[in-house]
């Protein structure tokens, strides 16, 4: 694929992608990679600095910070990714239906989206957590409930654009079944729009989740999560500020990588932006030196 080839040339994009995949794989195989049990308490080693056995030192209960960091990838990144995938999936399905079939379904779905989008996201997440109780799964549920509308909106717009194209009209005219058209012709081309939107939401979702965990509304002790690790370090913020460094840096690096990668995707998948300086239509003709009779007339 051309995209991958381009990425190999763009070092920053490659680095970002490597970081993201490395972190995700590490999280996936946490039990095999983590040097210690993340829940093992060593009261003797409280607030110990880094050592050969405990590379990043130990926390307030003497637990291995590195292992907790590695286990923390699961709720901080992997579960967020899963929630993102679900809400993109719901959004995509509804977006395809609305954009392709138009008419009443479209109007109804878009009104629902309007209502959903007129709720403030953070407040509604807090509300849902408040009612269902604290816990990671409730925050993730809240995310899925609040985010699908946005994806449905974006994907619908993309689908609208492509379903007006000639090859889709042609397929419709020769009687190809709607779902086959969507699957064969519309899904592949809208995939880039979906990827761009999803990747740009991913970063902000990770930040939000860690924020909720930091407030103690997310995953509960003794489980490790980056935001919660920061919360635990907060108690000794004045005496030992260095305990905030590891989890804070982890979040920053991953989110930066996601932002970079999302920016890259946006440029790589959008031919209009690839030569970003050329506004669409500026020299639009140069690439298609075909006589357009409509214009010559």
């Amino acid at each position, binding site marked *: 694929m051309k995209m991958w080839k381009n990425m190999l040339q763009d070092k920053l994009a490659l680095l970002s992608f490597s970081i993201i995949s490395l972190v995700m794989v590490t999280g996936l195989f946490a039990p095999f990679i983590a040097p210690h049990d993340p829940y093992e308490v060593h009261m003797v080693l409280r607030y110990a600095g880094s050592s050969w056995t405990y590379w990043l030192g130990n926390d307030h209960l003497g637990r291995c910070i590195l292992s907790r960091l590695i286990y923390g990838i699961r709720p901080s990144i992997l579960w967020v990714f899963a929630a993102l995938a679900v809400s993109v999936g719901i959004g995509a399905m509804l977006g395809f239906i609305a954009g392709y079939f138009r008419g009443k379904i479209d109007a109804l779905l878009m009104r629902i989206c309007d209502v959903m989008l007129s709720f403030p996201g953070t407040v509604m997440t807090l509300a849902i957590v408040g009612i269902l109780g604290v816990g990671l799964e409730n925050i993730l549920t809240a995310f899925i409930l609040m985010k699908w509308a946005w994806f449905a909106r974006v994907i619908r717009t993309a689908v609208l654009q492509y379903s007006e194209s000639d090859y889709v009209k042609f397929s419709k005219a020769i009687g190809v079944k709607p779902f086959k058209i969507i699957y064969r012709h519309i899904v592949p081309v809208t995939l880039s729009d979906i990827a761009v939107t999803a990747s740009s939401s991913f970063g902000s979702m990770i930040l939000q989740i860690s924020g909720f965990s930091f407030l103690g509304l997310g995953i509960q002790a003794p489980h490790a999560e980056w935001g919660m690790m920061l919360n635990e370090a907060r108690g000794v913020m004045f005496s030992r500020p260095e305990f905030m460094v590891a989890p804070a840096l982890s979040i920053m690096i991953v989110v930066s990588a996601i932002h970079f990668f999302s920016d890259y995707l946006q440029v790589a998948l959008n031919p209009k932006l690839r*030569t970003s300086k050329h506004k669409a239509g500026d020299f*639009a*003709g*140069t690439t*298609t*030196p075909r*006589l357009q*009779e409509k214009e010559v007339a």
Partner: protein
Amino acid sequence: MPNFLEVNHLKVWDKSSGEVILHDSSFKVNAESCLAVVGESGSGKSVTCRAIMRLNKPWVSQSGEILLHGENLSFLSDKEMRQKRGKTMYLIMQHGMSAFDPSTVVGVHLYETLKQHFGWNKHEAAGHMSIAMKSVMLKEPMEIMNKYPHQLSGGMLQRIMIALALVLEPDLIIADEPTTALDTISQYEVLEQFLQLRERLGCSMIFVSHDLGMVRKLADEVLVMKNGVIVEQGSTESIFTAAKHEYTRYLVSTKQTLNDHFKSVMGGQGVAKR
């Protein structure tokens, strides 16, 4: 007759990609005559116009000689060039709808331009503009000048641009497809205005168009472009009757067949095709 505008070996290319947009091109415009530039979109017509005014985007470079009255424009400073623009050479844009600042009424642009070149205050500028606008068949000029661009039609905005030319009295008018974005009736009216403009100002003109019918009516000479290359140039008559280049003949014949077809379908009536 002396050559009023002389363009020698003009080359335009994209700095970032290195792609050449306009190849080594040379042409002349005689004083008080009109040169039409025709060709399909993307053939380099607009780029040529902008190159003469030195208005291409910053990532586009140009080389070659552009002599206006024997003065090489390439050597002028930005400030000197700015003084030439508007007063000596004036550009009429393709899209009247987007040529005016959408956030203010059209009058503001007119007043500022006239203030820049003549030092007129708002009252004087409005006076001169009103007369010019009436002469291009824009009734109620004061009212129009107090309207936002989106409240006016493309044809009206095109005529406002022409009216501004009447006040500025430039030596060279470059019209970049001034009628393409208009419906057929407005196209006809704007063409009439162009004929009058030439008559009244006695200026030279470069007229870019797809519309060979208009070109035939307005131009003295024709330049045919394709893919950034000038494929043929000559007097209007010779281009239409005895084109040498295959592409020119193709353009002329397409125009003919389409025209015939159009007439047979519409029964000779014009129709608005927004």
